[in-house]
């Protein structure tokens, strides 16, 4: 095993240190070709086919492809197509790609990992015959190009040893570097540019469209429209000497010619205006900016400007509209203004949108309009424009040369017809970065068989709770049941003579199936959460687990992780224990069924009595929690009634909230808190917890002002006082007012986050909304990965399972939390986008007149909420009719004064003039303002009685934090 290897060293000079690294060259590296008879391949090590059939008309013999780094970086979309196979990826290339772009690197790894694609990664840097040392005076890139050519030549020679009678494959180098091609040709290497190769590929018509346009355009003669960007060194030097600033560019939603950059040195964000000011920066890019002298500072324009729908060609239109309107009058409103002088890092991803086909018949260059308003339109080249025009498509950005008005991109794939439910859902998922591909083979291989039953020895290891009457209570139609409960009277009394009960919360034992470090585990960790769209659920774990083996269905034996307390009748906890168990749920009930069982006094069975005990205990728990200062918040959420055939929403409905909802919630909270306490004690450094920071007072300023206008002084100093003053803020006759207040309060909150106990001081563990010093998520491991980790930690500390290394690793825990928080947030946004989509579908063919409330008063609009639909949007007020009072935040028109929390009546309709951005139009009906309000012929149609307003709308999942998870409602 220990053959001697030639030893070479590479010296690198970092700073002033001379660093010497060992570099071993090997003679046991395989070429991976089936045509090779010299390398001692095992069967599974052959990747490249011995008969690699050519699909390119330029080369009529079998061949392998070798790519250079830039080809991989720019043409990854071409590579991801199934067309090109038998490709050799050199380590030189792999490392350069990794260094330059991790996202593309991941995609490349995925292609290499796909057996059908026949991509072989060859470790040329450690092969004794293909390693090249850098020559004096040679640039790193030149050296790498040389290394690639050396490897190609080696392959060619290596394969030709066998080229006696059989036709063994040749090797073709694909590179877009003309100079490199010339040298290669001189050295006798067959080479070709990607464009030439792909354009001559037979049988894959769509492939050409995917070619990246990141090549120097042939017509360089065209005048440059934009100023050139500075070089990285210039930027670096500029930032160092303080002339330039670095920041992330945020494009304005409303005005495509405006954007801002947040820079450390300035309190206000820096305003960028016009094509030249933005200079080809795209939302999210890290840019270098130069700040103008103070006399040139402006204030942000408040106009809405959309890119015109015609393709003006490569011209920049006059920007006088913008500049004129932003002439400053007072000095307080100007913000620092500057311009982009260079791009430090692009943050381009793939964008969803629609194609705006060119007017010219047969043209190949078209404009693409992204769904995200902040992204500029993109010019792409495709020959399938007539097909794609009616589709939602995905496009990748390639480059933005100086002489092009729009960035250049290429078509990646079609998502489906515009307006089609699946296509629109796909857009939502892609735009929110929700991993939703089908589970891979590797993941599915980790699953137990479909007919899996609990093995005998597993039952022996666990506490057998099958005889106990356990039941689950969930919303109707719930298939991923991850919790069940039981309660029973136990013997004896406490010292005070109170009755004693045993209460158990049983959570699906997902970690029994999802073992650490398996493909299944990694996939679940990456997804982090199940995402609920209105008509679709994107599972975190495959269906077999989420809806069957882990789901605690009635009458079936299931593995569970149990948390069992002894409590007295006042709901004081006497003892807590955790153990893994086997349960057999007696019944899987809906909230309604459970409520009926409790209320129906004739029922004396075990289930009913158990539920009654739970219910009475829950009420005490809740009372105590509220007394401690827990906030009851609200959020305008709706549920759609979906047509069973088309899955289109037909009506919205508000759900009644029953005692049983809060009963389940209370015990889930209790379980989570108990687990959090245990974990924090056992793992001071790496327990996964959830905290909710108290909102800073500044968040409340506008809210308090609005409440004052309605005559209420709220005390927000602590959550306890806040909760109390919210309870007291009731206007008789306006029952919705209190709910509205709570909705608004929700928006003042911070986001609750997962964190690892080692990263935070003990006092920051506090959960503001729940008013408890420590909290975590334990009760929904089927749909949240955080709970999976918590299960593993808890299992290890109660001795049910072994720990594993990454569980105790601080850094890993921290990275995990970041991903959990990110995915959690994205899942919420996606869910909301889905609701918006369905609301639009609902209003496709109808117009409604509804009562509404004012959430906020803006300069030119009111932000209104339609409680019935949970819909929110702007009601624009013309400035010639209304005057805006800055101090009081009210709009005045004659006698009509509009202020926050006011109730109005509005007319709702859908504006479909723009396919991309269909939007709901709100028109004022009441109070009536002449020449502005919409006149309803028959004023008493569709008047919704206030008493019909949903008192409190229940969230889809009764999640333990149902109230709090909604506080991210802020737009």
């Amino acid at each position, binding site marked *: *095993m*220990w053959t*001697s*290897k030639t*030893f070479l*060293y590479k010296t690198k000079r970092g700073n002033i*240190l*001379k*660093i*010497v*690294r*060992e*570099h*071993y*060259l*090997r003679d046991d590296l395989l070429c991976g070709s089936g045509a090779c008879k010299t390398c001692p391949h095992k069967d599974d090590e052959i990747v490249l086919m011995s008969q690699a059939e050519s699909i390119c008309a330029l080369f009529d013999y079998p061949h392998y492809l070798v790519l250079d780094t830039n080809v991989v970086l720019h043409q990854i979309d071409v590579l991801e197509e199934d067309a090109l196979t038998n490709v050799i990826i050199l*380590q030189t290339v792999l490392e350069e790609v990794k260094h330059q772009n991790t996202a593309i690197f991941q995609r490349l*790894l995925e292609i*290499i990992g796909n057996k059908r694609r026949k991509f072989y*990664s060859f*470790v040329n*840097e*450690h092969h004794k015959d293909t390693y090249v040392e850098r020559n004096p005076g040679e640039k790193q890139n030149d050296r790498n190009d040389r290394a690639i050519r050396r490897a190609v030549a080696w392959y060619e020679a290596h394969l030709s040893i066998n080229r006696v009678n059989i036709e063994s494959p040749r090797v073709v180098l694909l590179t877009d570097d003309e100079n490199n091609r010339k040298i290669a040709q001189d050295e006798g290497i067959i080479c070709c540019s990607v464009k030439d190769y792909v354009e001559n590929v037979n049988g894959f018509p769509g492939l050409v469209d995917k070619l990246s346009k990141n090549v120097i355009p042939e017509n360089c003669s065209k005048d440059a429209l934009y100023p050139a960007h500075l070089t990285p060194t210039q930027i670096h030097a500029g930032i160092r000497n303080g002339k330039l600033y670095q920041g992330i560019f945020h494009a304005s939603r409303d005005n495509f010619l405006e954007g801002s950059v947040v820079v450390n040195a300035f309190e206000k964000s820096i305003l960028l205006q016009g094509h030249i000011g933005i200079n080809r920066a795209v939302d999210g890019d890290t840019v270098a900016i130069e700040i103008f002298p103070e006399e040139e500072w402006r204030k942000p324009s408040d106009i809405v400007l959309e890119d015109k729908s015609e393709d003006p060609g490569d011209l920049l239109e006059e920007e006088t509209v913008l500049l004129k309107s932003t002439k400053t009058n007072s000095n307080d409103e100007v913000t620092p203004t500057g311009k982009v002088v260079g791009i430090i890092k692009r943050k381009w991803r793939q964008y969803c949108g629609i194609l705006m086909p060119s007017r010219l018949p047969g043209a190949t260059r078209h404009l693409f309009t992204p769904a995200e308003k902040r992204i500029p339109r993109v010019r792409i080249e495709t020959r399938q424009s007539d097909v794609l025009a009616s589709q939602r498509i995905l496009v990748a950005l390639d480059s933005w040369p100086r002489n092009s008005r729009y960035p250049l991109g290429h078509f990646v794939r079609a998502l489906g017809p515009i307006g089609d439910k699946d296509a629109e859902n796909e857009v939502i998922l892609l735009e929110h970065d929700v991993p939703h591909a089908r589970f891979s083979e590797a993941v599915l291989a980790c699953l137990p068989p479909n007919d899996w039953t609990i093995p005998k020895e597993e039952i022996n290891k666990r506490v057998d709770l099958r005889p106990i009457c356990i039941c689950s209570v969930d919303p109707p139609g719930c298939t991923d049941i991850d919790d069940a409960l039981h309660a029973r009277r136990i013997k004896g009394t406490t010292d005070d003579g109170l009755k004693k009960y045993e209460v158990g919360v049983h959570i699906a034992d997902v970690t029994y199936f999802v073992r650490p*470090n*398996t*493909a299944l585990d*990694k996939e679940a960790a990456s997804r982090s959460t199940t995402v609920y769209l209105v008509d679709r659920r994107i599972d975190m774990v495959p269906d077999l687990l989420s809806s069957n083996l882990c789901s605690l269905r009635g009458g079936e034996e299931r593995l569970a992780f149990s948390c069992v307390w002894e409590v007295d009748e006042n709901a004081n906890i006497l003892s807590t224990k955790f153990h893994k168990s086997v349960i057999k749920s007696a019944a899987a009930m809906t909230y309604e069924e459970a409520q009926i069982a409790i209320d129906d006094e004739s029922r004396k069975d075990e289930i009913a009595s158990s539920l009654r005990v739970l219910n009475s205990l829950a009420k005490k728990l809740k009372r105590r929690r509220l007394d401690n200062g827990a906030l009851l918040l609200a959020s305008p959420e709706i549920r759609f009634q979906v047509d069973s055939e088309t899955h289109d929403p037909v009506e919205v409905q508000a759900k009644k909230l029953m005692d049983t909802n809060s009963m389940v919630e209370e015990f889930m909270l209790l379980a989570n808190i108990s687990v959090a306490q245990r974990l924090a004690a056992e793992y001071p450094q790496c327990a996964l917890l959830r905290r909710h920071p108290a909102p800073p007072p500044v968040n409340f300023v506008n809210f308090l002002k609005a409440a004052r206008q309605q005559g209420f002084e709220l005390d927000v100093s602590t959550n306890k006082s806040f909760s109390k003053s919210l309870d007291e803020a009731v206007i008789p006759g306006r029952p919705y007012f209190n709910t509205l207040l709570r909705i608004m309060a929700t928006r003042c909150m911070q986001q609750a986050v997962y964190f690892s106990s080692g990263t935070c001081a003990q006092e920051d563990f506090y959960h503001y909304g729940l008013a408890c010093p420590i909290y975590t998520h334990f009760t929904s491991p089927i749909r949240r990965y955080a709970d999976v980790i918590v299960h593993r930690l808890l299992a290890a500390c109660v001795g049910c399972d*072994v*720990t*594993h*290394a*990454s569980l*105790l*690793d601080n*850094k*890993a825990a921290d990275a995990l939390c970041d991903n959990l928080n990110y995915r959690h947030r994205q899942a919420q946004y996606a869910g909301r986008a889905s609701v918006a989509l369905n609301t639009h579908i609902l209003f496709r063919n109808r117009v409604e007149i509804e009562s509404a409330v004012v959430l906020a008063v803006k300069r030119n609009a009111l932000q209104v909420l339609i409680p019935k639909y949970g819909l929110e949007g702007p009601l624009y007020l013309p400035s010639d009719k209304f005057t805006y009072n800055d101090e009081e935040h009210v709009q005045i028109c004659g006698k009509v004064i509009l202020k926050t929390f006011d109730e109005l009546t509005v007319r709702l309709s859908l504006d479909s003039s723009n396919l991309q951005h269909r939007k709901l139009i709100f028109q004022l009906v009441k109070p009536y303002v002449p020449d502005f309000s919409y006149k309803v012929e028959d004023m008493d149609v569709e008047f919704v009685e206030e008493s019909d307003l949903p008192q409190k709308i229940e969230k889809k999942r009764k999640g333990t934090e149902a109230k709090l998870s909604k506080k991210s409602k802020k737009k």
Partner: protein
Amino acid sequence: MPGPDLLSSQGLRLDGRRPNELRRIRCKMGVFTQPDGSAYLEQGNTKVLAAVYGPHQAAKSKSSTEGVVVNCQYSMATFSTGERKNRPRGDRKSQEMSLHLRQALTAAIKTELYPRSQIDVYVEVLQADGGAYCVCVNAATLALIDAGIPLRAYACACSASMAWHGGQPEPLVDVGHVEEAAGGVVLTVASLPSTENIALLEMSHRLHMDYFDVVLSRAMQGCRDIEVILDKAVREHLAEGWTKEDVVTI
């Protein structure tokens, strides 16, 4: 997974070795004339000189009737590390290394043969590129043999670390500086491979108990591999300069 990628997707380490491969070991015995025994040993870019004086009469304070006192000094040349060291020895780490060296070597030397005596072992690290302690033990063993001091067995030391390859734990033998600096666990074992005994075990960072065995056995395998190399070097050294006739006359 924790730790940076120490293994490429092809299963090679950063320097091109496979997980079970040692660095290149080259050594020479008898590099100096004045000490009773001396040796030079390099593992990759870690290079160490060892010199042995003795056994000689022990200093009174150290003397022991039980057996020979092994006196060790670990010293690093000021230019041996990437960033220059200010002092060659006397710092806490060198003192700890000296003690560890003494522990491993005392286990190998037949100490009972020389009561009231002392053996001085001096090691000088010329270049440090990871695993300096291991290389010192191996070099000192050669120097002891060069000095003709009776040993129970070769004392060999080797380090091992952990990496992940395709979701599976994969221990790495003979950890280099880059791998050490990556922040993973480093388990160092000094053992007498022919007796399977462990003379010293030291571990930095955290290693989960589940993986301890695999890492340890990889380090032990490294020790055994090193023993083979040292044994070959000793035999070659002894054969040097001896012709067939010389052997006959003896």
